[in-house]
């Protein structure tokens, strides 16, 4: 199996980007990651695009907008979709492309332009991430699915609304240190607890916003990576898992089996355990998501996620720093872009280029990206030389 490294990273500004179209958003991090790698687009063999939704894009084959705008044609490109995990599925596909030997240098670009449609329509599109036949008739929204996971978690494990809120407090705190973040604002426990209830028990500050943004990375084979980069970061473990479409068929509503399966695959492939992870980006589209992630990734025992945030074990100086880039909560969650943005952050950490939010001496990182309410999950492990 060929080794594959990340040799270039780029991340555009996340936020409500009324100033730019999907293709224009995508251009920004591509330019940045080519500059970072010190190569030109002519050096890239193949491209993979991660975008979650045709409907947000207002386009059929939105990936064509991007390769066209970059002038990448006639070289290969197609789109990979895994809802909110589209970015990580695109990284996975980029890895497959290099590992297979069919290409040596691959550009992975991921973007989402969510604010062309209004909130009602966005809620409608995202609501159909669940079972559009069997759940949609009950007015289910995206916060609604995670709210049901939260209700079950609170009942079974005694997780509290305060513990959920603490995740928001942490991620907003670190978002302040990330100039690319959508929201640059500290929030207090009281602010979170007193904010508008979006879907009981989740409040406004338990939920990520609707963001526009894009991120891009360059992947290269071992030979090329050593030519291109002084600080290649290797993707040494990849895992992908899935779960039932409807929540009603889950064995345990508090466990995302896709995460457990993907994490086990990734740990095994990289030959590491959860204890080896120095820094992680996990999928906190809702605060309960981060708590489930702690547990399902093996950072703590099942049911102890609430305690883990309460004890600040996932702060920068804790047992394992999580989402110190602000997470989806504060950095923003332009759904298709998120997975690639996670890869960008982990590479920054492993290169020790993360500034104020640097995890000292980080050698092994993990990203965890969820489609919908767990229907598909990608976990990657990253290691520096």
């Amino acid at each position, binding site marked *: 199996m060929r080794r594959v490294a990340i040799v270039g990273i780029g991340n555009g500004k996340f936020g409500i980007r009324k100033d730019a179209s999907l293709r224009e958003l995508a251009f920004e991090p591509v330019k940045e990651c080519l500059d970072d790698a010190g190569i030109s687009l002519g050096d890239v063999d193949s491209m993979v695009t991660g975008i979650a939704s045709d409907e947000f894009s207002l386009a059929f084959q939105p990936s064509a907008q991007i390769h066209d705008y970059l002038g990448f044609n006639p070289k290969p490109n197609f789109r990979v979709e895994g809802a909110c995990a589209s970015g990580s599925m695109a990284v996975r596909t980029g890895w497959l492309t290099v590992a297979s030997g069919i290409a040596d240098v691959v550009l992975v670009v991921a973007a989402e332009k969510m604010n062309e449609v209004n909130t009602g329509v966005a809620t409608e599109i995202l609501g159909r991430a669940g079972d559009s036949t069997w759940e949609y008739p009950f007015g289910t929204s995206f916060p609604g699915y995670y709210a049901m996971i939260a209700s079950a978690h609170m009942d079974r494990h005694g997780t509290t609304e305060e513990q959920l809120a603490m995740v928001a407090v942490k991620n907003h705190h670190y978002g302040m240190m990330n100039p690319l973040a959508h929201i640059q604002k500290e929030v207090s426990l009281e602010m979170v607890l007193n904010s508008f209830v*979006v879907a009981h028990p989740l409040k406004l500050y338990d939920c990520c916003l609707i963001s526009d943004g894009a991120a891009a990375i360059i992947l290269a084979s071992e030979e090329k990576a050593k030519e291109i980069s002084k600080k290649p970061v290797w993707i040494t473990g990849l895992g992908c898992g899935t779960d039932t479409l409807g929540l009603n068929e889950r064995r345990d509503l508090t466990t995302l089996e896709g995460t457990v399966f993907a994490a086990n695959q990734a740990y095994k492939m990289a030959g590491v355990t959860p204890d080896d992870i120095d820094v992680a980006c996990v999928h906190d589209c809702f605060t309960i998501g981060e708590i489930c992630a702690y547990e399902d990734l093996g950072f703590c025992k099942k049911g102890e996620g609430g305690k883990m945030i309460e004890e600040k074990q996932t702060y920068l100086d804790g047992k394992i720093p999580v989402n110190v880039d602000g997470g989806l909560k504060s950095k923003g969650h332009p759904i298709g872009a998120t997975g690639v943005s996670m890869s960008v952050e982990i590479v920054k950490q492993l290169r020790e280029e993360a500034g104020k939010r640097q995890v000292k001496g980080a050698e092994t990182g993990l990203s965890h990206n969820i489609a919908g309410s767990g229907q598909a999950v990608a976990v990657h492990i990253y290691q520096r030389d």
Partner: protein
Amino acid sequence: MEFKDFSRSINHTKLDKFADYLASGKIMGTTCKKCGSRYYPPRADCKKCFSDGMDWVELKGRGKLITFTSINVPPDYFDVGFKNLTPPFSKARYTACPIGILRLDNGLSIMGWIPGIALKEISVGLELVAVPVTLPDGTVTIKLCD
């Protein structure tokens, strides 16, 4: 009755009788003729043995609520788009109505609206029963009741 009178969007399925059954007062799942696996939502094909021979079976009896929520920011269809319908349990415009998932004794789980109970009275473990409802506009859905 069309299946979308239940589903609100998807209309083509091998399971379109589900909506007719709901209209006649029955919540139906399916059981595999070959291996006996039981499904709700119903399936036309068995994911255990890959047989496509299925029987419709009525789901009855009380169950326990395994989770619930109440959604204050609804998808477009249930808000503005709901104008042409009589919303299930609301006035002219969408009013939040709790929803939840009921687990029956046989292990199958049913999602439904919980219109009759105040949110603060609802908790995981509550015993309820799933009941088909025909709305004033003729569409059908399911509610979970005391």
